Each structure stands twice: as structure tokens, then as C-alpha cells.
């Protein structure tokens, strides 16, 4: 069920004003374009679609309640993603299974250097190969294998295409931290996907040389 067409012409500011005066359709018009993005953000942290949906609903209702105080310093979508991520983290904290994940871990600066694990001369995986279910599943598995603080940054930057500044805002970390975590996330994805880079996901000759400098 899509929102009424006449709402499409309204600006974000107009929709916000209407929402504040009780127009629920207008509010859904604001939210609807963000659905995929906030769901992905919640999944980044919770990795469970039932939990992610619950968190998105809570975040959206909180946004509705807080909307009168929204000053428009950020885009509505960025603000909503931020609320969603906070809700997701709250939920994860409550979830006993994740007691070992200290919330403080989120705030620490990245120490040390990032080293790519080896210097395999990988064959490029063409985007056409994404047709293959195995590759899509491998991507998902690789994403799941990342620590949450790396997965969050990767999803916000490389899937949601938020800017570094927006990502820093949403996650409440420094821009420097965003960049360092993104580097590590990308290297870890590269490592996790390595087995298939020998050409098994692309047609053609397999060439997978591991070269170590030491």
C-alpha cells in the first residue's frame, strides 16, 4: 500500500510540519524512502530480521515523538538511521547472548596499523558474477563474520553510501575512527572472500598466488 501521490510533491520540511500537526500519512511519506536504509542499519547490528523490524518500528515511533525537536541540521534519513542504530544497540545490550560485547568498545579509538593479510594476486570478480547465488551468500557470510563495529561502518559507507561525516554522526565516533574502521572492514571482507578469488566465481583461468614479503 503506497502513500497517496499528491504527497510526493511536498518538500521534507513541509512533510515534517504536517507530521508535527498529526498527519500520519505525511509522516509515512517521510519514512517510506528510508525503509531499506534503516532496516539495513538495524540488520548491521542485530543480524536478525525479526529483531531488526521491531527495532525499526520503535525507532520510527520515537522519531515521530521527537519530530517537533528536529531542527533539520541533518537530513531526516540520517537522523532516522541514527535513532535506529541507537535502538538496535539498546536491544543488543538487553539481549543476554551479547553480554560479551561491551558498549564501550564502540567508542575506543583504533590502535595500531591495519595489515592486509597477504598479497594474493586475485582475479577480479566481475559484477555479473553476482548473479550467482553462491557469491551473494558468500558476501552475506563474510559480512556476518565482521565484528559489529566494522560491519556498521561498512554498511553505512559502502551500502548506504553515507558520507564520512554522516557516518561519524550516526555512530557517534570521530571521522578518523570511521576511516580506520572502514579500512579494517574492507580488508577483512577481502580476507573472508579470499577463497573464491581464485576464480571459482568467475569463468576463466584460476590464478591465486600467495606472496608474502617476509
Amino acid at each position: 500500500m503506497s502513500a497517496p501521490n499528491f504527497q510526493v510533491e511536498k518538500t521534507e520540511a513541509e512533510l515534517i510540519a504536517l507530521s508535527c500537526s498529526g498527519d500520519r500519512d505525511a509522516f509515512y511519506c517521510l519514512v517510506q524512502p528510508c525503509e531499506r536504509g534503516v532496516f539495513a542499519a538495524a540488520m548491521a547490528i542485530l543480524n536478525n530480521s525479526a529483531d531488526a523490524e521491531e527495532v525499526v518500528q520503535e525507532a520510527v515511533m520515537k522519531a515521530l515523538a521527537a519530530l517537533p525537536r528536529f531542527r533539520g541540521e541533518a537530513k531526516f534519513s540520517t537522523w532516522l538511521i541514527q535513532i535506529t542504530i541507537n535502538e538496535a544497540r539498546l536491544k543488543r545490550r538487553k539481549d543476554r547472548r551479547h553480554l560479551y560485547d561491551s558498549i564501550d568498545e564502540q567508542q575506543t579509538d583504533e590502535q595500531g596499523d591495519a595489515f592486509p593479510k597477504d598479497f594474493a594476486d586475485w582475479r577480479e570478480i566481475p559484477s555479473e558474477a553476482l548473479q550467482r547465488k553462491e557469491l551473494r551468500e558468500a558476501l552475506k557470510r563474510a559480512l556476518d563474520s565482521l565484528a559489529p563495529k566494522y560491519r556498521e561502518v561498512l554498511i553505512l559507507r559502502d551500502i548506504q553510501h553515507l558520507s564520512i561525516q554522516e557516518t561519524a554522526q550516526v555512530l557517534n565516533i570521530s571521522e578518523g575512527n570511521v576511516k580506520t574502521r572502514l579500512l579494517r572492514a574492507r580488508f577483512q571482507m577481502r580476507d573472508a572472500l579470499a577463497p573464491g578469488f581464485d576464480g571459482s566465481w568467475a569463468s576463466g583461468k584460476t590464478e591465486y598466488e600467495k606472496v608474502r614479503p617476509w
Partner: protein
Amino acid sequence: MRVIEISCFEVWREISNFIDGEVDAELRARMENHFKECTHCKAILDGTRNVVKLVGDGVEYEMPPGFSSRLQEKIKNK
């Protein structure tokens, strides 16, 4: 123009920023020069770029069926 050399370690640290166009002109020149000379780092650059592209194109979270209508209902019923 003689470009000052850069170590592989520095290149690895900046490679993600390089891909995103987040390095200043001087550093970019040094890194581009390094990639011409160092096949290992060039391989890492290519591989990392490939990963970024795959992640961008290939990861899609399946929205649970009915997600939108349930959300809309929740908003309407508040």
C-alpha cells in the same frame, strides 16, 4: 617532478582513503607512484576496490514480507 617515496605500510594504511578520494594531492601522487612500482600493493588496491564494488552491488537485505504495511499500520494506530 620528483615524488617522495612511500612505504608499503603507509600505503596500506591509506588505501581505503585513496579509494574514496580522501587523500590530499601530494599523498595521492606518492601513492600512485608507488602503485606503478609495487605490484603487491597494486594487487591489494585492485582487490579492495573490487570488494567495495561487490559489497555495494551485491548485498541486499531482504525486507520481510509485509514490512511496509506493518510499519504504516503502527504509525497510523499511535
